[in-house]
Each structure stands twice: as structure tokens, then as C-alpha cells.
């Protein structure tokens, strides 16, 4: 494992829910005391169901969501930023180093700008290039890397299919030369036949440009194919972090096991019904006591209702937040 590029230490993002005259106002704990290291040069997956806080975590790292507790640091060897207390000047520099690729390529691109202008905008806004020639050269270079040709640059987004639009979004995110890229559900809106193409592109760009990716997805099978490490989130907490192969070979947390078995298998005889979860994800405004998963956990004990399990090192380079992971491991 390389040194971490982004390191989170008990990071929390809480949103106040109204005000109270007496006593503390209720808060929605979107992210609660998350500790995580994203190794430099890795393709790091973050999975979870809707409402688990995966997008908020990504946004907090980019300082697009407020950090209400804990620490987040970014350290790429050239600079070392504490993201909670980062100043305005440093922030401007950080924006060049950390970028985001959005989910919906139809909503993310302005219909009134040409592809060239869309890709060039970050360069102009951040003042990275001085002359138009310089900007054009940068745009052409990154467009070629994202397999867009010069003729594409003159057109408007409406002329492109979903896959091509996503390539434009990727080019725009990478044009300012970031070291860290968050891809938030970047293939979720694409058809299967196109999705593979974008995933392969992201992987080859990562190798070519030495990027570190935080790949946020709800789709475990996609994550399994592209990521080196995976963190599984449930209700604002990370329940398991592991090297991808280890996680899929031996899921240690009961939630990870349930999530894996819920993926519809291509084999009609493999229904995965044994691990079926009951009920739905509780509201993050009133999360269950103790382990947040205890209301749906198939192997719940009394202790789980009282004590919050913390993410702790297990074996084979994995970490699990479960009191009883060793005892409940099947087989």
C-alpha cells in the first residue's frame, strides 16, 4: 500500500435539522466519524446504497460539503493541505489538484457551449493558460487522450451520445492536470455496451497520467472489475475496507455479504436467497443505536444494539466494523 494521498480521520458531515429553543437541535449525520486512507495511485472504490453517504463523503473531500468534525488531509508530495482549515489561496491550488466527474453526462454539459469551450473553461477560470494558443493546445492534447477528435471540438453537446458526452466530461475534469479525481457514479447513466468503454478509458487514463481515483458507485460488479481497494458504506459509516479481491472472495461484514448476494446472478439457478436482507435502510436522521446495521443484520447479537463497532484491522489487509465478524464468517 502506497502512502495515502487523501487521509480522513474521524471525518463527520452533520446537517442541522431545524432549531430548538431548549436543548440541542437534531442533526442529520450524513457522514459520521469516517476514517479512511486513499493510497496514492490507487483506484479506490466506494460503494453503498442510496443514502449511505458515499456522495457526501466525496463532496466533503472536495470541500463541496461542510466538514463538521474530524480531519481530512491531502498530501501529494508537493503540497500538504488540511482540508478542514484550508485557506483561500491554497483552495485555489487544491481545485487544480482534485477534480470531479459527474454522474449524468446529459445534465453536466452546457448545451450552449461548444465542446472546445466546455473543456477549456477550467483552464480559463483557474488562469492556468495565458494565451488562446496555449489553451487550444492543452484542450487538443486532453481531448486526444479521451479519444475525442478535433472535429468533435467544434460541435455542441447535443450532437453526442451518452458515451461520448461522458468522454467530454472526463476531458474537462482532467484538463487542468489534477492528481486526484473523484468519479461519482460516472457510468451509472450509461448503457452496458458503452459502460465498459468508459471504464477502460478511466483505467488507461489513470495509468498514463498517474492519477488517484475515488470511484463512487452503487454497482458492486463494476467496482469489482476496476478498483484496487473497496470501502463499503452503510448509513454514513464505513463498515468494511479491503483490497478488492479479498473483499469479493471473503466478505467479512454481514452487510457486505448481503449486498453481494443481492446482485442478480446471470445464472438462473443461483438465486442468492439465503442472505436476503429484510426491511429497508433506516432514516439517517434517526439512525439505530449501537451498530447502525443491527436492525437488518441476520446475525445480530445483544451487544450490537448497545456498542458502536469501530473500523478495526482484521486480517489480509482488511478492516471491518463488526463486533462479531470472526464468529459469523461462514465456512
Amino acid at each position, binding site marked *: 500500500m502506497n502512502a495515502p494521498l487523501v487521509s480522513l480521520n474521524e471525518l463527520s458531515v452533520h446537517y442541522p435539522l431545524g432549531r430548538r429553543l431548549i436543548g440541542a437541535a437534531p442533526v442529520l449525520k450524513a457522514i459520521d466519524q469516517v476514517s479512511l486512507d486513499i493510497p496514492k495511485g490507487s483506484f479506490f472504490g466506494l460503494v453503498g*446504497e*442510496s443514502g449511505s453517504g458515499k456522495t457526501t463523503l466525496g463532496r466533503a473531500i472536495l470541500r463541496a460539503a461542510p466538514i463538521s468534525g474530524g480531519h481530512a488531509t491531502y498530501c501529494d508530495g508537493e503540497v500538504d493541505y488540511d482540508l478542514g482549515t484550508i485557506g483561500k489561496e491554497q483552495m485555489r491550488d487544491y481545485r487544480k489538484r482534485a477534480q470531479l466527474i459527474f454522474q449524468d453526462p446529459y445534465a453536466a454539459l452546457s448545451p450552449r457551449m461548444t465542446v472546445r469551450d466546455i473543456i477549456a473553461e477550467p483552464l480559463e477560470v483557474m488562469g492556468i493558460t495565458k494565451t488562446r494558443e496555449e489553451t487550444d493546445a492543452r484542450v487538443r492534447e486532453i481531448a486526444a487522450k479521451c479519444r475525442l477528435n478535433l472535429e468533435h471540438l467544434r460541435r455542441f453537446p447535443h450532437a453526442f*451520445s*451518452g*458515451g*461520448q458526452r461522458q468522454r467530454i466530461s472526463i476531458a474537462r475534469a482532467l484538463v487542468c492536470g489534477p492528481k486526484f479525481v473523484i468519479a461519482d457514479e460516472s457510468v451509472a447513466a450509461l*448503457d*452496458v*455496451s*458503452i*459502460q*465498459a*468503454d468508459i*471504464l*477502460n478509458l478511466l483505467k488507461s487514463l489513470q495509468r498514463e497520467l498517474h492519477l488517484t481515483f475515488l470511484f463512487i458507485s*452503487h*454497482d*458492486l*460488479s*463494476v467496482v*469489482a*472489475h476496476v478498483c484496487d481497494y473497496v470501502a463499503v458504506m452503510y448509513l454514513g459509516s464505513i463498515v468494511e475496507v479491503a483490497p*478488492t*479481491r479479498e473483499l*469479493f472472495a471473503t466478505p467479512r461484514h454481514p452487510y457486505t455479504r*448481503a*449486498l*453481494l*448476494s*443481492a*446482485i*442478480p*446472478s*446471470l*445464472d*438462473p439457478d443461483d*438465486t*442468492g*436467497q439465503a442472505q*436476503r*436482507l*429484510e426491511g*429497508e*435502510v433506516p432514516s439517517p436522521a434517526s439512525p439505530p443505536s449501537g451498530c447502525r446495521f443491527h436492525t437488518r443484520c441476520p446475525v445480530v447479537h445483544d451487544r450490537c444494539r448497545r456498542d458502536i463497532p469501530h473500523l478495526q484491522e482484521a486480517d489480509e489487509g482488511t478492516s471491518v466494523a463488526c463486533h462479531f465478524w470472526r464468529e459469523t464468517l461462514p465456512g
Partner: protein
Amino acid sequence: MTAAPLITVRDMTVRFRTDEGLITAVENVDFEIAPGEVLGLVGESGSGKSVTAKALMQLNAKNTVYDPESHIMLQVPDQPPLDVLSLKRERDMILVRGGAISMIFQEPMASFAPAITIGDQMVEQLRLHSDMSRKRAREISIEMLDRVGISDAAKRFAQYAFEFSGGMRQRAMIAMALSTKPKLLIADEPTTALDVTIQAQVIDLMKDLVAEFGMGILFITHDLGVIAQTADRVAVMYLGRIVETGPVREVIKNPAHPYTQGLLHALPRLDDLDAPLVPVAGDIPSPLERPPGCVFHTRCDRAIAGMCDTRTPEATTVVEGHEARCFDLTKGQEVA
């Protein structure tokens, strides 16, 4: 399959009149569904899955044109067969819409009226299709809500759609669709908006209900995994044509059409993490530039020049019940 098909679709071609001209959405589609059978219709966006489904109930927009040779025959047991496309008046359609055929949609929040309670919506449609009393309709609705696994059904009956979670809304939708005891259920991407753990619950529920009610289901999805878990037979659509059809095991294990094979290769699979993801080359052509000949030839690596780009392949039997439309299958038998 011995039972007479519930619905038979023959040579259905659906076009839309638009400012840019006549656009073909579905072309020469044939299929049938027997009682108790689940037919999975799988395809990517723009392949014409939803248009096909909506045609069964004539729910497509006003600018729809059905070619004269298109036929949709609905054969409810103990009733005379009904030619759906010959029904012109809205009030005749009630026999089909919600009567013989019910539909559940992808986004249940958008399908329920936001300002009317779930219960009132269920009662309204029940009374529309029968001369049931309000009280009886209420009883049946609560019973159905209970049956689809909504706890405290009597209380939930009086609530609004926004008070339900996503999975519960989809269950309520299923309860509503089944309360009129339809012979055919059309499920258009019913689990796409749901999380995987909830999707698994809804799939289990639908399987139980097929076993219990014995209706036929047309299950539309883009997810081959969901198809494998729910359908008996599958039809793969691409650009408005069914390119391959057969029993679900057979099609997934021995896909014959290059498009089906491409889809399966592009799909990230959990049982083999080392398999490279192979995208299907190129993009789906715009409906305005529909390729002549085989619709897939622009993206097919086995396309034969002078053949695939000019002639439309006929359905060729791979094994009994498994058909694909591809010249590559008949290559050896071609004289020319």
C-alpha cells in the same frame, strides 16, 4: 408450452410522426406470452422495449402509426379473442387497460398521484373495472397491500405516496396492478430505481405472485442479471428489432447473436474478476439514421459487406425454441 398464448404479437411495426419525418421505433416484432409465463424483454435505451410494451395497451402518444400488418391478439380464457389495435374508442380500451392487462412502471413516485391517498387510488381503479362497493374495494386493497408485504396495511392505505419509501411504493404499485386480477402484467423496469437489497426483495415478491396468480408477465429491463433471475424466456431487442429469443438459460449460456454476445462480454461479472470488459464497439445509431439491412451491422465485427448492410436476416433456429436473426448463423447454408 401447451397453453394457448395469452397475447400474440405479429409483425408489429410502430412508427412516430415527427417534424423530422416518420421514425421507426419498433419493426416487425413477433412474440407471444402464455399464462403463467414470464417473458423478459431486454435491450439498451432506445431499443424500443417500452414502446413495444405500451403498444399492447395502446398507451403510445397520439403521433403513433401502426403499420397495417401489425397484429396484437389478446386471448383471455373463456372470452372471444380481442384485436387490440382495432379498438379505436377510449372507452373500449378499459377491457384491456387495467382489465386484462396491468402495468407497473419504473418510477413509482411519478406514477402515483401525489395529492390522493394510495388507498383512494387503489379503490378508484378497482371500482372502475367492476361494480364493487366502496367497502369491498377497500377490503380487497388492504388485503393486497398486506399480501405484497406492506406491514400495517390499514394505516398505510390512508397515506400518501411521499410517506412511502421507494421499495414500499413499488410494492404498493404491484398491489394496485394486481388487485384487478389482470391476466397479463407488464413490468417496465420495475426494479431499476431501487437499491440492490430492495430489488432482490421485489424480485422475490414478483416470483411468488406469478406462482400464486398464474398471470403472464412481460418483464422489461436493461439488466441481464435481473432477467436471468425472473424470466422463463427472453427476447433481446436492438434498435426496434428482436434479434434473439429463447429460453433464458439457453440464451445466456449459448448466445447466438453477436449483439447478445457483445452485451454479455461487456457486463462486469462477479464470478470472473480477471475477464476484461469488452465494450460493444461504436455507439447506438440515432433513430433518424436507422441502418439498412441488419440493424446491428454498423457495430458488428462479423458483418459481411454486401449482405448484412442490404438484407434483413430472417429468424434462424439455433436449437428448438431458440432463434436469432443473423446471417452468420446461416452462412454455411447459403448457396451464394
